[in-house]
């Protein structure tokens, strides 16, 4: 199965976590996170609700730019990794979860 390399810069963590996720065509960033929660790391924290780009709770930094994880397709940037981080503004509760 094709793999996608996902790097997650979790809040309050010095190390960047790397996950090799089973990749399916047209997979969104949110689906990649769901894969990680289910099969790699049950402690990963991220927010989402509507899955259709309306609630904006799934917003994070995706390959260096802010974006909705349910709307962005999971694609590596030029460095070969899909890199995720919490939004820089405001306080972060855990990993990718902001105080809302």
């Amino acid at each position, binding site marked *: 199965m094709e793999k996608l390399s996902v790097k997650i810069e979790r809040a309050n963590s010095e190390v960047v976590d790397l996950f090799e996720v089973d990749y*399916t065509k*047209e*997979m*969104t960033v*949110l*689906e990649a996170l769901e894969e990680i*929660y*289910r099969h790699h790391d*049950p*402690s*990963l*924290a991220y*927010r*989402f*609700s*509507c*899955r*259709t*780009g*309306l*609630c*904006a*709770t799934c917003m994070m930094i995706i390959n260096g730019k802010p974006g909705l994880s*349910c*709307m962005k397709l999971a694609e590596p940037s030029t460095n070969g990794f899909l890199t995720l981080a919490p939004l820089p503004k405001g306080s972060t*509760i*855990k*990993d990718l*979860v902001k105080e*809302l």
Partner: protein
Amino acid sequence: MKSMEVIKTNILIIGSGAAGLVASVYAGQAGADVFVIDKGAVGKSGSTVGAVQIASLGAWSQPEDSVENYLNDIKESGRGLSDPELMNILANDLSTRLEDLIDWGLKLDLDENKEVAVFPTAGHSVPRSVSARKGKMGLAIVQTLIRKVNSMDNVRKWSDVITLELVKTSGHICGAIVFDQKTNTPYLIHSNAVILATGGIGQLYPITSNPAQTTGDGFSLGLAAGASLIDMEQVQFYPVSLVTPHSIAGLCISFYHYSKLYNSRGERFMTAYEPEFLENTTRDKLAIAIATEIATGRGTSRGGVYLDASGELDKVKKEFPHEFTLCTDRGIDLAKDRAEIGPAAHFIMGGIQADGDGATTVPGLYVAGETAGGLHGGNRLGNNALSECIVFGARAGLAATAVEGITSAPPSNSPQSKMTDLFLKKIQSPTNGHIRPHELKEKLQGILGENVGVIRTNESLGKALQQLKEVEVELEQVKLSSTGVYSREILDFIEAGHMVRTAQAIVGAAIQRKESRGAHFTTDYPQMSSETYHTIVKLDDETMEFGTSPVKGGDR
């Protein structure tokens, strides 16, 4: 266990969709101290955010529209199960509640003549649906209400706290035990009254239009507190929802009245089911027709049928821009592609039984929005969920303000239900088990999807009940591999507990209804019975009891 920290308020409102927020504003305006809590982010976690339009009566209404007209449509749609008192209140209060929202800053979408744009909706005899923020009515309502809430010092919001159970003293509700996910701390919120506004049950099914939080917690909480559930078998499947791609599976296609549906043989099958209205019929009939095509082998390999919207694309783009763009972005070009669609769990007409003020049979417990039952009967008309939220949210908020609470006897600090007990035990020894909570949720979704979908049988319902018992036992075998703060595992576990209880109520109610009516269709009793009755579910000392009760206002 050491005693829990207690927080005091007049009114605790659980859930911050349209119903919970409307209740917060009206209760706040009446001077009550209000706490509105949500297991997700306040105002951003319920079905409300996804709603497109609202049914309305107002200055913009068509000349032929009226309270009576609206009332007739709801009555017709409810298949004899809609409560006459609730219908009357909805039709009579709606215009005033909309005016209030407009006063607070809600701006309705306008047409090219700068008049309020009024849209037709299947099942409504007259066009009466309006929207805001270009077809994002739910979002617009929530934003208006959040602004209002933020301006009131006596209304406090609290995100990321999930409710474990409601608490009673001498038969009167006096608060709830909640769990703050940000600090992993349980709290006891002590209040005069509680309003449950926790939304619906979409997540009990594998394919749903609903957001992640719709795990049916309110029904489970209400049952455990002694409230009755009415007509829980009445689950509305949105007939036309995307089957693929996976990332947006369940997305409602609201423009089906502008589309043609074809089976895998290329037949426009609605000509056989509804020769007069074709695709523009009520949701229950359309869902049953589509599910029948699929069940009889005329569906696609993914279990859907085809939708062709190419004939009315301009209207689709204009009235439903969000859905149109989402389809386009995920590779469905509606100008030339046929989308693959099927029924997805969308709404529950059944719910906690309450009167016109949202008062349940348990003193101090109120309910509003999708968690309440009785209004929509066997089929909810499109755009009538938001109208329900704003009308009954307001009434529940005001009625709860008048409740004199139990001040003298603060509730005991020890958990009262088996489920909370199990939860607190698990948190203390999380690794004593072997099943991950999300696996249990998925198992439950599979059971309901397979056996309690659009088409049901005695056999499938019996099987579901049996399998749900197994899931209930497996809750005790859950292992929590991550118990830090903001743990999805913990959230999944609490939700799984509520889901099992609510699922059992749905299946048990479905077994009680020995006929096909509204959204409940069983091949063992394919006809509507001449006798009209409600199904009722109660919980007595952890045992679920099922029964029926006569409808108000006689048979029809």
